């Protein structure tokens, strides 16, 4: 099995909640009557709608186009009519522009893009163009448009392709189930990405608690040496891009906004590999994704292949509803996810999980002054000094916080998790980042 790799810092929650759903195979949800497709499901500029109110559309039809270099196309999740294009509650609490589609119940698909079966002889540029057309974004959470990630600027060579199957976030099992249930597609997608980037090997990084998935992948790749499957220590945030690169290659991504390609690495989620394979070989655009719906208040938690735009209310209905009134509804995992105030918020391309926490599991507390214990410094995987930065933000010394590299914080939440004074550390850093960005825009 080789040695188990890891990185410095991070935490290990005792109860990672994976037991709730790791045995639940991926299910197909029924067709819903309405889908709210957000126009901003990715990092970058929101897509521009190309349909009008009352237009008839088909499943897989392009309904919004990328508006700029870092942006992505959006496709219809089902057939029906465009009910409205308006602002809807978005995952970040702000109203977000969305296309509301009323399903006609027939779910008739439009003509798929022409499959490129013989991709091994196609030009990589052609394949990247197809991936952009299909609107594929990173499915791990950040939702960065993949075509941008796959076309490194001139002069940069990529020698390591890393497939991220770590799924370090507690409670989530969507990637685990995907690797277990369709290992062939994952491997094929990895080979396709490897071909586009021109690397020798594709490295899979998988946490040690998913041995069954590792075995499935090893069998599916027929023990060829072009795919290396590496087991990693079960440790949060093992699946974060920079930590994964360090664990697998020993390379450190430079700070102050450095990108993995500066150390010759590209990291892709396993879900993305499957989406890329389907887009190229089957001509299918990205309008559905696997989402873990979990939490102790749910009657039957599990994994579903939801279409983009499915409102949370329907998602919870799929999981059999709730046994008790939940304390929190979180989009994503417990460490990095965002708590929601409305069940109208829809699933988007990067929603890896919907988590319900019971009232006992969510504690309401007031942040106390820092006691300088240094626990947060020990666990910060980016080697920042959360205690000091939080004090700087508290006193509104944002320039000082920038000097202390608050911009490198990836908001993994490890510091907030260990803080004995219950300080809302990540919120301080998020605030600092927003304020610094606003100040920069003003000074320009």
């Amino acid at each position: 099995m080789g040695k188990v790799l890891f990185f410095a810092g991070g935490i290990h929650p005792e109860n990672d909640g994976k037991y709730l759903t790791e045995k639940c195979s991926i299910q197909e949800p029924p067709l819903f009557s309405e889908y709210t497709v957000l126009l901003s499901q990715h990092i970058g500029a929101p897509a521009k709608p190309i349909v009008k109110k009352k237009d008839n559309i088909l499943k897989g039809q392009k309904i919004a186009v990328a508006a700029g270099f870092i942006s992505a196309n959006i496709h219809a999740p089902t057939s029906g009519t465009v009910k409205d294009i308006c602002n809807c509650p978005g995952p970040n609490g702000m109203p977000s522009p969305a296309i509301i589609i009323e399903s006609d119940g027939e779910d008739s698909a439009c003509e798929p893009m022409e499959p490129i079966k013989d991709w091994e002889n196609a030009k990589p540029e052609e394949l990247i163009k197809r991936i952009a057309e299909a609107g594929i974004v990173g499915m791990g959470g950040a939702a960065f448009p993949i075509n941008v990630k796959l076309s490194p600027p001139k002069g940069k060579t990529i020698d390591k392709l890393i497939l991220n199957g770590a799924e370090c976030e507690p409670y989530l099992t969507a990637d685990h189930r995907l690797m277990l249930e369709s290992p062939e597609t994952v491997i094929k997608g990895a080979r396709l990405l490897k071909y586009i980037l021109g690397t020798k090997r594709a490295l899979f990084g998988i946490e040690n608690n998913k041995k069954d998935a590792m075995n499935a992948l090893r069998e599916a790749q027929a023990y060829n040496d072009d795919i290396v499957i590496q087991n990693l220590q079960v440790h949060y945030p093992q699946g974060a891009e920079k930590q994964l690169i360090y664990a697998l290659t020993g390379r450190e991504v430079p700070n102050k906004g450095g990108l993995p390609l500066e150390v010759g690495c590209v990291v892709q989620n396993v879900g993305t590999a499957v989406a890329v394979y389907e887009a190229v070989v089957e001509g299918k655009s990205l309008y559905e994704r696997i989402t873990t719906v979990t939490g102790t208040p749910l009657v039957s938690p599990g994994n579903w292949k939801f279409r983009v735009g499915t409102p949370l209310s329907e998602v919870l209905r799929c999981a059999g509803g709730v046994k008790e009134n939940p304390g929190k509804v979180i989009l994503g995992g417990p460490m990095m996810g965002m708590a929601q105030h409305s069940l109208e918020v829809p699933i988007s391309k990067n929603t890896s999980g919907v988590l319900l926490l019971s009232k006992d599991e969510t504690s309401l507390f007031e942040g106390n002054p820092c006691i300088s214990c240094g626990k947060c410094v020990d666990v910060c995987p980016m080697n920042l000094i959360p205690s000091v930065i939080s004090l700087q933000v508290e006193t509104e010394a944002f320039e000082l916080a920038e000097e202390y590299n608050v911009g490198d914080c990836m908001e993994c939440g490890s510091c907030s998790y260990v803080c004995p004074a219950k300080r809302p550390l990540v919120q301080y850093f998020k605030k600092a980042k927003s304020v610094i960005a606003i100040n920069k825009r003003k000074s320009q």
Partner: protein
Amino acid sequence: MTGAILFLTLLGLALGVLIGIATKVFAVYIDPRVEETEDLLPGANCGGCGLAGCSEFAKALVAGKVEPTDCPVCSSDDINAIGKVLGIKALSEIKDVAVVMCCGDNENSPELSLYNGINDCASAVFAAGSVKACRYGCLGLGSCVHACPFNAIEITEAGIALVHPDLCVGCGKCVEACPRDLIKLVPETAECHILCSSPLKAPAQRKVCKTGCIGCRKCLKEAGKDSIEMDGFLAKIKYENAPKIELVNACPVKTIKPKLGLEEKLKKITEAKKVKEGK
């Protein structure tokens, strides 16, 4: 023993003489008016005048760089007293007070979600967009309370910021602190205010707040164009020509509220009017 006493006495005398000479030779002349004016200033160092504290302001006053009325905190009596010291005629202006242009408390604009984070309004806006249903209203987390150097603002039990006009000196610190720009400086003499800052149309407004301005224009008809202007679906008072307190009764959704402390006056006027109409 005697030697030591003698030595110390002589040393003390010598140093005393030295200090006496130094005070004469190195004396710095301070205009006595600076000290006198500084005593009349509030001494809160709020920075409302734009200078670094009250002593700087006093120096600038004596130097003739600023006017006594540039201090937003001084009462008209103080300003006249300063004028006397400086030997200039200081006309006291009408004082400005801060008003929170929102009346959507927890009852009228219910809380959307339970916010449990950094206790300050700007952080809440960054984290969740809104705490209450209305996206334009007061969050009630008290950034303005922390900013006020005069303890003039309180968060009421219903979860909304309230400025006490008798304590407010109009320094404008709270205006900067509010992330939603809800606080405005208005003349002290204004008897009523339109407490809403939401540009929403009536149906959307009614959904999120029971007392938000719906843009019905009733106040405009009642008070006339000189006193009220419409900014889209939001009525605004023209404070240079502020309407009388009776306007409060014209608003069907109770967005127009009397100035704090004038509720009794309004009651009397309303009753008197009723009696008159009854006749």
